[in-house]
Structures are given as structure tokens and as C-alpha cells.
């Protein structure tokens, strides 16, 4: 398997509000390889959105603090990267699609200008005109020797023009119309039928589904190596949700990015992700290949969550719900954070936090991709009603 694009190690994020501290994300570890889709599910307030925004360091700090752990993106720990260098990772390195398509586009600019800006950012970085960061051994050193494959290099040769250098300039210097073509191609990529008209519209003249398609086009046009989708369909109508989800599924196959897909909807994750992490009260309580986790959940919370997912027919009986409520993250329960609501809870659950242990005892415990559950009594979970 190829090297992971992103390795998150024991990441903890807290919010300090007034005198209180909220433990929003605690000891989360993840690994994503290129072309893989990892889904994170959990209830509202379980910390999944905080996790999504902590990775590109998009959380306002303060109030948020990355307490411990590392976010290693292509070999560089983003926790240690300086504030001024962070923009260089975003866009072309890590792209993001947000939950709120209605407000995520700037109301003062036309669709064209906003997409053009994204494409220009990528273009200028590819050309080496502006500093960027894509990870690797010399992350911020872009003092490349001039060569004819960049415009800057070509310009240095124009002074003594040679045929090859002129050609390179002609090929590489993207003109207005080339940028326009590229903007149009990304609008077509997200299945917008009439891109020529859409280009000249302002965001307020578009529907929510359209705006989310444009947000997706904008994120993809920077060709990120990691794409974070933070509940991309949650704010949309059911029919539009299905359309955008179908689009996402098709695009996942087309783009070669690693994708972190955050959702509270189990169905959405089941359809898109290769692996799933179930979050509860800031921790990942169960992790594994999607099919395995759905077929054989090994954490009481996952089991309850699957049971609570609405079925399609009224005749299936009343909806089931999980007794109790999500704990207040300023005072999380000791030990296993699910124990106050758990049918299997015993004294040991109140003591130490159960480790994320492999379901198959024969599996190597350090592997990140096998089915694991953070429950002391995971073998008893299949017996639960």
C-alpha cells in the first residue's frame, strides 16, 4: 500500500470558553492513503466537525487549542507549522467542502471570479510564482534553479531568445481564455448543464444544490491531495442530497485524492466510504472496513446507532433511540465515555479508558486498517438486542 497522505496521531483538541474547557476531540488517530475514503460518523456535538477543521488548522486558536498529538500531512507535522505558512498548505494541499453551501460562497463576487481565483492559486503555485507547500522532505524550500518548464525560468531565457524557450512560454502562459476554459471544465465536471450562464451569476441567484456543486468544483479545481468533506449534503433537501451524493461518489472514483468524509448519516457513509470511524464524545470508539463494521458492530454505541437509523416503513415499528443524552464535554464521564448510557457497563468501564483494540485477537495490534473497538466487552456486543 502507498504511503499515507495524512497520519493523525493521538490528536486532542480543546476549546476554552470562559472558565470552562471542552474536550472536543480526544486521542484521535487516523491514516489515509491516496484514493481511499474514510468516513467519520457520530451524533451532533461528538467532535467530528472539530476534527475536520483541526486538520487544515482552520479552527480559530484561541478559543481552540491543539493540546497534544500530531497531524502529519505528507511528512510534515501541521501542528508545528507557523501561522504564515498555513495558507500554503490549504487549497492545493488540503481542500475542504463545507456543510453550509448557502453561505460558503462570497456574495459579492460572481461564480466565475471565485472559481478563477482557485484555479489561479493552483496555477501560480505549479508555476513556482508563489510559495506553496505540498509536503515532502524540503517542505517550504521552493528556491528551484530556473528551468524552462516554468514561466519564470522561460522569461530569464527570453533575453536571449531561443525557439524552445519561446515555445515554452507560449505553452505555459495560461491566457484568459485558457483559464475560462478550465473554469468551464470544472463546472462540467460537477454536472452543471449550463456552465456558460452559471458563470456570470452571483451566489444568491443559485439554489443550495447548485452552490454546493460550485463549492465542490472549487475544491477540486485546486487538485488537493487530501479532500475533507464536512457534512457536504446535510444542509440540502433530500432529493438534492441524493444528487450531490451521487456526484460525490462519481467524483471519488475520478479524482485521486484521499478523502475524509464526515457525516452524521450512516447511509451516506455506507455508500461512499472504504473505512469508517465511529465517534462518540470526542473519541473514536470503533473503526474498521465499512462492511465489517456495519455487519458486525463491536461497540455498544455503534450497535445502538445502527439500530436507531430510521427504516423505510412505518410497519417496522417505532424508531428506536439511545437512552440518555450526549455527555457535556466540559466534564466528560470517566473511563469509557459511553458507560452512563451502556447496557454492558460494569465497574471497570468507569475506571480506565478502554483502548481501541483489534476485534480479531490474532491481528497485529498496531495496524490502523483492521476492525477495532474501544470496548472491554466487545465480544458481548453481538449478543445485545
Amino acid at each position, binding site marked *: 500500500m502507498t504511503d499515507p497522505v495524512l497520519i493523525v496521531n493521538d490528536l486532542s483538541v480543546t476549546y476554552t470558553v470562559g472558565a470552562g474547557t471542552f474536550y472536543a476531540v480526544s486521542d484521535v488517530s487516523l491514516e489515509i492513503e491516496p484514493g481511499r475514503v474514510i468516513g467519520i460518523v457520530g451524533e451532533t456535538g461528538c467532535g467530528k466537525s472539530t476534527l475536520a477543521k483541526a486538520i*487544515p488548522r*482552520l479552527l480559530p486558536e484561541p478559543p481552540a487549542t491543539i493540546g497534544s498529538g500530531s497531524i502529519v500531512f505528507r511528512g510534515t507535522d501541521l501542528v508545528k507549522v507557523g501561522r*504564515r505558512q498555513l*495558507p*500554503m*498548505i*490549504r*487549497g*492545493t*494541499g488540503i*481542500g*475542504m467542502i*463545507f456543510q*453550509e453551501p448557502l*453561505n*460558503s*460562497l*462570497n*456574495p*459579492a*463576487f*460572481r461564480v466565475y471570479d471565485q472559481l478563477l*481565483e*482557485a484555479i489561479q*492559486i493552483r496555477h501560480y*503555485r505549479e508555476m513556482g510564482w508563489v510559495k*506553496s507547500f505540498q509536503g515532502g522532505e524540503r517542505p517550504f524550500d521552493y528556491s528551484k534553479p530556473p528551468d524552462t518548464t516554468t514561466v519564470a525560468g522561460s522569461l530569464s531565457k527570453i533575453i536571449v531568445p531561443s525557439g524552445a524557450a519561446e515555445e515554452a512560454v507560449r505553452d505555459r502562459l495560461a491566457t484568459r481564455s485558457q483559464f475560462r476554459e478550465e473554469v468551464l471544465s470544472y463546472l462540467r465536471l460537477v454536472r452543471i448543464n449550463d456552465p456558460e450562464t452559471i458563470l456570470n451569476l*452571483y451566489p*444568491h441567484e443559485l439554489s443550495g444544490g447548485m452552490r454546493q456543486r460550485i*463549492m465542490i468544483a*472549487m475544491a477540486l479545481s*485546486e487538485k488537493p491531495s487530501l479532500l475533507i468533506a464536512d457534512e457536504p449534503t446535510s444542509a440540502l433537501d433530500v432529493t438534492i442530497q441524493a444528487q450531490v451524493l451521487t456526484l460525490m461518489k462519481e467524483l471519488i472514483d475520478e479524482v485521486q485524492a484521499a478523502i475524509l468524509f464526515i457525516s452524521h448519516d450512516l447511509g451516506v457513509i455506507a455508500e461512499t466510504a472504504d473505512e469508517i470511524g465511529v465517534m462518540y464524545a470526542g473519541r473514536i470508539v470503533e473503526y474498521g472496513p465499512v462492511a465489517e463494521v456495519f455487519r458486525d458492530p463491536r461497540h455498544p454505541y455503534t450497535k445502538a446507532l445502527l439500530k436507531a437509523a430510521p427504516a423505510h416503513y412505518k410497519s417496522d415499528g417505532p424508531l428506536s433511540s439511545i437512552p440518555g443524552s450526549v455527555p457535556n464535554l466540559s466534564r466528560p464521564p470517566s473511563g469509557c465515555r459511553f458507560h452512563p448510557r451502556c447496557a454492558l457497563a460494569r465497574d471497570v468501564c468507569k475506571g480506565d479508558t478502554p483502548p481501541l483494540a483489534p476485534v480479531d485477537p490474532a491481528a497485529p495490534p498496531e495496524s490502523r486498517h483492521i476492525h477495532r473497538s474501544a470496548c472491554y466487552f466487545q465480544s458481548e456486543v453481538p449478543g445485545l438486542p
Partner: protein
Amino acid sequence: MGRSPGDLLIFVLKRLLQLIPVLIGVIVLTFICTHLKLSGLCNAVYPHASKAVIDACNAKYGAPLLPQFVSYITNLLQGNWGASTLGQAVYPAIAADLPATIELVLAALFLMIVIGIPLGVIAAQYGGRWADHLVRIFYLSGWATPTYLGAVLAAVFIGPALGLPTRGEYSTVVPPFPQYTHMSVVDAIIAGNFPYTVDAIEHLILPASVLAFINMGIATRMTRASMLEVLPLDFVRSARMKGLSEFWVMYKHALRNALITTTTVLGVTAGGLLAGTVVIEEVFDWPGIGQYAYDAIGGGGSVANFDGAIAVVIVFAIGVVVANMIADILYGVLDPRVDWR
């Protein structure tokens, strides 16, 4: 209603039509205020004149109010703006003085925009931290300064300290070139006279800076407040996530939306700046309409000039309405969600 040039034209015409009732109101009010109590005027103006002169004067100003008003309005509608008590025609004086005032106001507005708005952005960006407090101290001290005090201090201390001229438009009273526009800098540029252009700009700096400093608070404060409203919005976060540096996030994406409010307020202020020039022009000997207004109401021992006072108020009223109209047009330009109506 929409956003085409035709809609803009209709919008402007409508606004100009609304100017008519405003002007009627302004004229009636100022006329009554200036003419209500004029019984002893002619004796006061010509204390040692012969009876014939005083009688002629009384024939003009001693008549009942209504006929005086009717004759004033009739003259005004025919393009005759009247004359001062001493017989100097009002219109040519105003036509020569107004451009100088507009030049001063535009220069002050320019300073308010290029200094006041970035200060507001900085204050919002570092909200609650020392940069924010420094900016607040700066604009509040401007706001708290009375115009006459600021102008006098600048003329007496700051000007000499910086080597800036504190009197008039040019170093010579009459420049050696024709004054087409009566705007000192513009005339010097038209004449292609570089030394005089520099001289004119030097003369403009001090009065414009004082006017800007005193009124800058409104631009800074409004920018800061609307930036603080805009910054938590989702599109600012998406702009950051595109990989834009903090500078472009602030000055392109956030400020563009914050400016919508600031523009409206600046339009209102611009009208007020016109009136704010009265004291400043007097102190800096700037040959503008403010100085004319000061003389017209009898300031500095001059003889009161009623037709002139009314004319100045009319010009100020037009200035306020036009400034607001321009602000409303810009509002539509800046915010694509707004129709001109």
C-alpha cells in the same frame, strides 16, 4: 426594477426629483430665519448714510415678508441668486468658491478612505488586542477634537513644525495661469505647471488632514464593526481554505462585503464635511464656500449677506442630497443583491 444602466438612470432621476421638495423646505426655512427681524437693519448697515440711502435700503428690505419672499423666489427661478447687502452678486462668488471647497472635501474624503478604512480592518483583525486599542485612541482623539481647536493647533504648531504652508491655495495669491476649475491642484495640472502643482498639494495637505482627522472616526468605526460582523461568516472560512493569504482574505473577501455599510455612512459624512469646512476654511484662509458662508452670516465683523447665506444653505443641501445619492449608487455597485430603486 433591476441593475441595468437604464434602472440606474431612473434611480438618479427619481432622486433628483426628490431634491425639489427638500430645496423648497430649505429655502423657506432659511429665508424666514434671515428675514424675520430686520427692522433696524438699514440703520445698522449704513449708520452715517443720508436719509435717501436708508430709504432706498428700507424699500428693499423693509417690505412685508411674503412679497419679499415672492420676489426672491421669482428671481431665483430666473437664475438670479441675488446680491449681498453691499451689492456684490451672489452667484459668481459662489461659483468661484464652491470648487475649492469640493476639492478640500474630496481630499479629506480620500484621506479618510485610504487611512481610515485600513485602520478599521486592522482594528477588527486584532479585535481586543493592543492594535485595536491604539486605533481606537487615534480615531477617538480625532472625534473628540473640536474643529476650531484642531484647525488652530494644526495651523499654529503642526504646520510650521512640518514646514507646511498654512494659508491659502498657493504661495502667491494669484497663480500665473488661468483658473478654469477653481480647484487649485487641478488648475495647476491643467496649466502643466509642476512647481505650482506641488505647491498646491502642499497647501492642501494641512486643511484636508485636519478635516479628515476629525471625521475619520466614523469610517474606521464603521469598517471595524462591519468587519467584525463579516469575519465569522462561512465564506471567509472558504476563502481561507482556498489557500489565500490572510491579506487577501481580509482586504479582498471580507472588506469587499464590509465596505457596503461603510460606503453608506461615508456618503452621509461627505455631506456633513461640506459644512465642516466653514471653520477650517476660515482658519486656513482657504478661498472656499465655507469662508463665504462665514462672511455671509456676519462673521469676522463683515456685513451680513442674506441672499448669500440662503445660497450657501441651498448649495449645502444639494451637496448632502447628491452625496447620499452617490453613496446609494455605490451601495448597489458593491452589493449585487441590491437593486437600484
